[in-house]
């Protein structure tokens, strides 16, 4: 926390002093009680401080436990449930209170004030990549609250960091893919992509048998029954390069490679210059040319700050290997949706993972290897 901040931050005296200590109560040493099993019995903390304290405790524990647990165990983590439950309780209390306030009209301005306050702090917050854990949590809380205030609906937003000993990789079986595009629609639904412009992270290229990989003659925007006679299919998306050209060129470090290999974007830090888009050799990046719109009932409310949370106009976005899912131990939506089993995802550092088996037992290749980008996306055939 003592590290020098590289960005400008407006201190309106609202962020409280809690960030300075290692504990939500502000104490640096000694037992303050908030780490005990029944923190609610002792000390009178405000709801937010308590939430933050529980949050911190949980994050500390899950970071450790995630290295041991995998798969669905992480999702059904009891502690995550408690946290969600607590959040929902606070949220409903706040919404209820808001409703009462509005009906009484005397204090109706409060919500507007809070909205303005959140907008102000969001406008002048720093780069997510350089935030401390507390600051990350604070911005996530603000975004959740902001959604609540605007849409009267609750979303769940994670700020989970990369786990230790995890490096995500992806393999695509060209023999299996039949071009059904279930992956594309699952991706759009999972990641809250703009429906008006029909933005899609995944492109499926339909190629002619016997002609090899001729991308320039392939159709990546077909509307006919598949599999078409005499054709094979190949999917592309962001390859999460180990040496990503897009990261180098960003003038404000709004995009970077995380410890687990995911190349992510801080949508709020992006200035929309589209230099990364010009630098990407794989057509992996998309830009919000207009304000992205998703019908309210189609919004995926299980979100991650770096993943599928709602974007605004004028910022870049792209595939994150569904960070909201992959960091919770699940497969990305495209992998889950694929009816043919052409898509394989997993931890490259786990010797028992399927992806490792594929890399070790199949003849794999990557696209445009001569560019030195080191994609973590391999193709193979049966």
């Amino acid at each position, binding site marked *: 926390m003592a590290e020098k901040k590289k*960005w400008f931050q407006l201190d309106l005296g609202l962020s409280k002093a809690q960030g300075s200590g290692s504990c939500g109560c502000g104490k640096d040493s000694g037992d303050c009680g908030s780490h005990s099993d029944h923190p609610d019995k002792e000390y009178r903390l405000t709801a937010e401080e308590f939430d933050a304290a529980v949050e911190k405790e949980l994050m500390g524990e899950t970071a450790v436990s995630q290295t041991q647990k995998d798969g669905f165990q992480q999702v059904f983590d009891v502690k995550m449930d408690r946290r969600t439950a607590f959040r929902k309780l606070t949220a409903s209390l706040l919404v209820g209170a808001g409703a009462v306030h509005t009906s009484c009209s005397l204090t109706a301005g409060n919500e507007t004030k809070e909205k303005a306050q959140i907008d102000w702090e969001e*406008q002048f917050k720093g780069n997510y990549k350089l935030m401390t854990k507390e600051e990350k949590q604070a911005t996530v809380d603000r975004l959740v609250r902001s959604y609540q205030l605007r849409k009267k609906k609750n979303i769940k937003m994670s700020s989970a960091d990369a786990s230790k000993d995890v490096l995500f990789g992806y393999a695509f079986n060209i023999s299996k893919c039949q071009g059904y595009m279930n992956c594309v629609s699952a991706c759009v639904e999972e990641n809250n992509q703009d429906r008006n412009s029909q933005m899609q992270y995944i492109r499926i290229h339909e190629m002619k048998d016997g002609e090899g990989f001729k991308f320039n003659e392939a159709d990546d925007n077909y509307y006919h029954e598949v599999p078409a006679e005499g054709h094979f299919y190949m999917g592309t998306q962001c390859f999460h390069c180990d040496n990503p050209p897009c990261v180098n060129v960003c003038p404000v470090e709004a995009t970077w490679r995380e410890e687990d290999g995911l190349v992510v974007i801080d949508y709020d830090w*992006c200035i929309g210059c*589209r*230099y990364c*888009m010009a630098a990407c050799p794989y057509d992996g990046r998309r830009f919000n040319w207009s304000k992205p719109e998703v019908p309210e009932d189609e919004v995926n409310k299980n979100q991650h700050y770096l993943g599928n949370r709602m974007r605004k106009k004028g*910022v870049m976005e792209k595939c994150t290997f569904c960070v909201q899912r992959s960091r919770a131990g699940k497969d990305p939506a495209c992998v889950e949706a694929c009816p043919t089993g052409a898509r394989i995802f997993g931890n490259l550092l786990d010797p028992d993972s399927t992806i490792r088996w594929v890399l070790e037992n199949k003849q794999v290749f990557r696209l445009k290897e001569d560019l030195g980008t080191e994609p973590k996306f391999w193709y193979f055939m049966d």
Partner: protein
Amino acid sequence: METIKAFMSMVKDSLGYITHGSRTYHIWMIFLTVIMLIGMYCYSIQLDEGLSVTGMTDRVSWGLYISNFTFLVGVAAAAVMLVMPTYVLHDIDFKQAVLIGEGLAVAALIMCLAFVVADMGGPSVLWHMIPGIGVFNFPNSMLAWDVIVLNGYLFINISIPLYILFRHYQGKEAKASVYIPGSILSVLWAVGIHLVTAFLYEGLQARPFWNNALLGPRFLASAFAAGPALIILVLAAIRKFSEFRIEDKTIKKIAMIVTVAAQINLIMLISELFKEFYAPTHHSESAYYLFFGLEGKTALLPWIWTAIPLNILATVLLTFHKLRNNLNVLYFCCFILFVAIWIEKGFGLIVPGFIPGPYGKIAEYTPTWIEIWVTLGIWALGAFIFTMLAKTSIGIELGKLRYRKKEVLDSESV
């Protein structure tokens, strides 16, 4: 104290000077203002709806704005070709031209910055780019370098003429020991801004059309042709519309620079064409698209086949002394050369970089009217700023604007 007072007086006098003028001057400024207002209106639409109102898409993600930006960096860099002989080599012929050249550089740089801002998706968070306040990806990102060199060059080109004009305004000679180091720095810096801007494209392994070692040198050659060509046209206009005397000798010397740069540019063009078409590889597809079209998509053909003949014609005409020394021919050559390089270094460079796309998709780009009007608005802004700068510096150089000599305001007639 006296200095501050003199400076305040200069600002006041200049403000008075630029708001008074002949009927032609007023019509010109009103015309530019109207264009600027239309441009601003179109930009407000763009701000409101997003960049979807432009012709740019995920396939061709840079267009008219970045094209003009690239070209204007070259125009700005060209001021150096006048600065060097005047300040460093003491070639007196250029002295009248150099203040004009630096004014042009300032206007071009402001236009560059305006084009970059117009192209941004989130202009409200541009502070993220300010070093110290935001996070600046230096030295990794070439765009970060570009921000530094463009703003630095803007600073140099404002401060040197300002110092000289301020001294002249007070009726004193400018001290060479003050402006010579600045001039030498600006000479090096001018090469820097154009090279860095070229590196912005050159460094992208994803775009073979740009990833080409000749790009930087060719940028410089074309800049030193188009920039001074514009200066010649501007000097011609100034000669016509003001009492400021510019010798034929000065214009002819600048014409020499234009000629040599245009010849070098043509040689490099031939080298580039040879490489792309003698042994075409997969990486030559963009050049094929630019010159011949691909799969029936031919949007750029009229542009590039206007640019190439104009470029060759201008270079050939300029090469003959007799033709170059005829001022009317010279002005014509400068004009067509300027247009040719604007097409070549703008549209002809940026758009084919994206076509075909990374996987061979050929999606064409056509600018929308909103985009075109914003572009025209920014050009009008540049012309507006340049007119004001040039008028003031001419006023000071002619002695019409002098410290404690207010009465000239009423007698002037520009």
